[in-house]
Each structure stands twice: as structure tokens, then as C-alpha cells.
């Protein structure tokens, strides 16, 4: 698959949360479209994004670079007292993607949830 499909949902937790569901492989050919989609929802006013990776079977380093860029766009930077992003969290990665997240230690930088409701209320 050379393109990504997106679904954007607006949810109300403690703060408004944009749930961005991605479907497809996030690689060198597709990472830009993820970046651009996130830029679009941030431009539209989103300040908290839950990235739903349930439809992503492969994520290469380009995908992790895109996730970092999204976290930067949300103006995370150096959150005092914690390494983890307060504005970007991940939902329900597939086994293959979860393995790469663990190898690269990305779970050190981003909270990962299996349950959508719990994830939304964590912001």
C-alpha cells in the first residue's frame, strides 16, 4: 500500500482530544502524508492528539521521525519533570509496530494505550 488513509475524530476528555486514526504502512513513501495530516489538524486548532495505530502493520524509521515532528508541532519540547509528551499519545499499536516501538525505546517518550476511553481521559 503506498498511501495512508486517515480518520479524524474529535473527543471531549479533560481537554478536547483529536483522535487521528491511520491505516496503511508508514514508511519512506508515506510518512509525509501523516506529517501533513497532523499539521492540518493542528492548524485547525488541535492541541492534544491521540494517534490510533490500530491500522498500521508496518512503521519504519521514517514513521518515527514523523511522530517526533508531530510532537514538536504540538510544542512539546522540554516538559519539566517528565520525558513524556503531554500532547501526543499512541493508541493500540499492532504487534509488529509495538515490537519496533519497544526496540527503539519510543515507549520511554510516548504513552501507549490499548483502551481508547482510557487514553482520551489521560490527557
Amino acid at each position, binding site marked *: 500500500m503506498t498511501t495512508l488513509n486517515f480518520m479524524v475524530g474529535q473527543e471531549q476528555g479533560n481537554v478536547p482530544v483529536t483522535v487521528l486514526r491511520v491505516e496503511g504502512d508508514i514508511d519512506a513513501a508515506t510518512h509525509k502524508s501523516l506529517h501533513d495530516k497532523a499539521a492540518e489538524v493542528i492548524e485547525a486548532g488541535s492541541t492534544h492528539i491521540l494517534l490510533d495505530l490500530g491500522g498500521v502493520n508496518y512503521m519504519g524509521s521514517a514513521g518515527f521521525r514523523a511522530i517526533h515532528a508531530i510532537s*514538536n508541532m504540538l510544542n512539546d519540547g522540554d516538559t519539566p519533570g517528565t520525558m513524556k509528551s503531554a500532547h501526543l499519545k499512541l493508541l493500540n499499536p499492532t504487534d509488529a509496530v509495538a515490537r519496533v516501538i519497544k526496540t527503539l*525505546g519510543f515507549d*520511554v517518550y510516548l504513552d501507549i494505550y490499548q483502551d481508547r476511553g482510557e487514553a482520551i481521559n489521560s490527557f
Partner: protein
Amino acid sequence: MDTSLASTKTRIATLRKCKFLQGLKDSVLSDLAAKAEILSIDGGTKIITRGEDGSNMYFIISGSARVHHGEVVLANIGTGDVFGEMAVLDSEKRSASVTAENSTLLLVIERDMFYESLSTDPNAFKAVIHGVLQRGRGIIREVKTRSTKLMAYEKEMEIGRQIQAGFLPKSLPVLENWELAASFVAAREVAGDFYDVFKLNNLPLLGIVIGDVCDKGVGAALFMTLFRSLIRASSLYGNVYSGLVDAEPGDASITADEVLQNSLLTTNRYIATTHAGSSMFASVFFGLLDTESGELHYVNAGHESPIIFRQNGETELLDITGGVIGLFPAAQYAVKTVTLNNGDLIFAYTDGVNEAKNLQGDQFGESRIMEATDPRDISPDNFLSIILDAIYEFRGAAEQSDDITMLALKYRLQTSTA
């Protein structure tokens, strides 16, 4: 004939623009213009498809189109250009696809009609042959120019590769009681693997670094030189100035853990802030070995777990103690310690080893490293050769897609002969 879309004058003018028809007499061009059909198509319409048979050649009256192989665009063409003539002249399959970019008006001539018109003038074939050959010579000149440019570019890439290779250690430190080996096999495409081995000033510590910068190409190579230099410089010279750890100049009490922490924090913070916009990261294993006690202090920042092969046949993995470096300025890295005993071998590597693929797409994997050989009776150098052979054998005819970088270190206490 229907002249509603293009007048006879426009048709003849269009044909006249075409170089390989330029030697034809007016009477032949008029005959061709009369036999031609006019095709009006919308932007996005595929006019011819690579690999298919075709008997029509097309002259663009107005509009534009792209000549392409799938996604790769070979040429952009417009008013006055011709396409599809090669398959008409040599009856071979279409050599490329052509898709209209916008509303395009085409003059279409079918093969039999083309030859029929030419046969009205004895000199017409000569003129067309001349025109086709002229075009051929033009293409050869263009290819020559491009290949000269490409050769210059490849030479530059080769120089870049050599500079990059110069960032790897030229030789390895010679140590009492320790045997050391390193291997680096570059992939055809430039990648971002690196390793480093160095002694620390005034401390009985040996620095061992192996890393992999994300992605491939020139960007990865540039960042590789940055990561590698920052790690070494901050380990050797940076402790006093960074303020990240508390130490005085010449302070011999600084610990291995402090050197590691300082180096990783400095490198990460520098790249994550100075180069925040590039989102480039590296996975790094950085160990400081106390060559007297065998204690190995290490940080594993998102890297493949190095393997310790113990003298008693057991294996241990040095799993991650933090995430990849270069992205998040506030990142912290835990230091862990493991002790190597006489006869133990530690093997560190990049994903070019475990992710080496065969033609079926299977990966070499960690288990094949573990099972390749019994490392207890062989030198680190031998061990790396055996692993490399195992990768080559597993990979078969498949291409090497990533750098293969490996380090092995073995504790071998000299037995006293006194």
C-alpha cells in the same frame, strides 16, 4: 475531413514542427494532414501504455503530457512534440507510457496510412530515415552528457563514502588480557552505521560504541559523523564543561557512570535542540569497560541488545536502558553494569545483521547469531568471520540492503609463565 477541431493549416503546421518529418514535401504533409484524425482528451487520461502494442503516432497540437514509467517521469512534452512514433516505425511494444497533464488536442496518424502517404513521393522515405537518424544522434548526445554528469556525481559519492569511512577507527587499541575485533561491511546505498573504540584519559576504561542513524542516504551519513564525534568528544573532553555532571578539571574520581551519563545527555540534548527540525535519531550502545576488573558499565539507547556469551555456555542480553538519542531534549538514560569474566565474549551489532533478508524475505534474526558457533574456543576475529559467513550463506542471492557492523570483545587472562 472534419476540420472543426483543427484546420488543415494547423494540422500541417503541427506536422512541420516535428523534426523527423521536416524533409517531407508539402504535398506529402498535406496528404498526412488529411488522413490524420484529431483526438481531444481530458487531463489525466492515459494515451499509451508501456509494453502494449500500438500502431498510432501522436502529434501534440495543444496541451501537455508526461512520458513515464509508472511513477517515474521521463519527460514532459507539449505543443509540437511527437510521441508513439517509435512503435509505429519499428513495430515493437510501447517503450513508455504517456498521460495527458491537461486538456490536450492530438493529431493521430496510423501506421498504414503513414506509409501510404510516404509512398506518394519517392524521396519521402529517405527524408524520414534522415530525420529519424538525426533524432537518434541527438538522443545519443544527450545520454553522453547525462552519463558524464552521473559519473561526476558517483565520484563525489565515493569521496563522501571514503570520508565517512574515515570516521571509523583506523585501528583498535591493543590491550592486555582483552581481544578485540570489529567489522564493517557497507551497503551499496550510503547508510548511517558507526562504531568506535577508544581509551579514556587517565582512567583504566575502554569506550565501546556501536550505533545506527535512522534512514539511509547522505542525511544519515552526515548525522552519523555528528553523533559519533559528539559521543567521543563528550566522553574524552566534555565532563568538566557541560555542567551536567559535577567534576573538577583533572578529577580522577569521576566514575564510568558519570562519563556515560554526561556523554549521552550532551549528545542527545545537542542534537535534539540544535537539529530539532530534522527529527534525526540514532540507536546507540555505549559501554565503558574497566579493563582491570572486567566490569562493563553501559547505556543501551534503543539499540539491538548486545549478547554476552559466557564461558559456561549461557547467554545474556544487554537490553535497552533508554530510548533512541537525538529527539527529545529531556531524555534520561539509565546506566547498568555487568561483569565479564575470563573467557566471556560480548558481541554488539547493528540491524544489518539480524534484519539481513534472504530472497524469501525471511530475516536472519537473533537466534541465528546465537546458534552460529560456540564462541568459547575462538578469537573475536574468528567469531565475526563466522557470523558474516552465516549471514552471506543465509542471504543467498539477495542484495545487502543495510550496513553490517559488528564488534566483539573477549576477556582472556594471560596465564603466567613465571
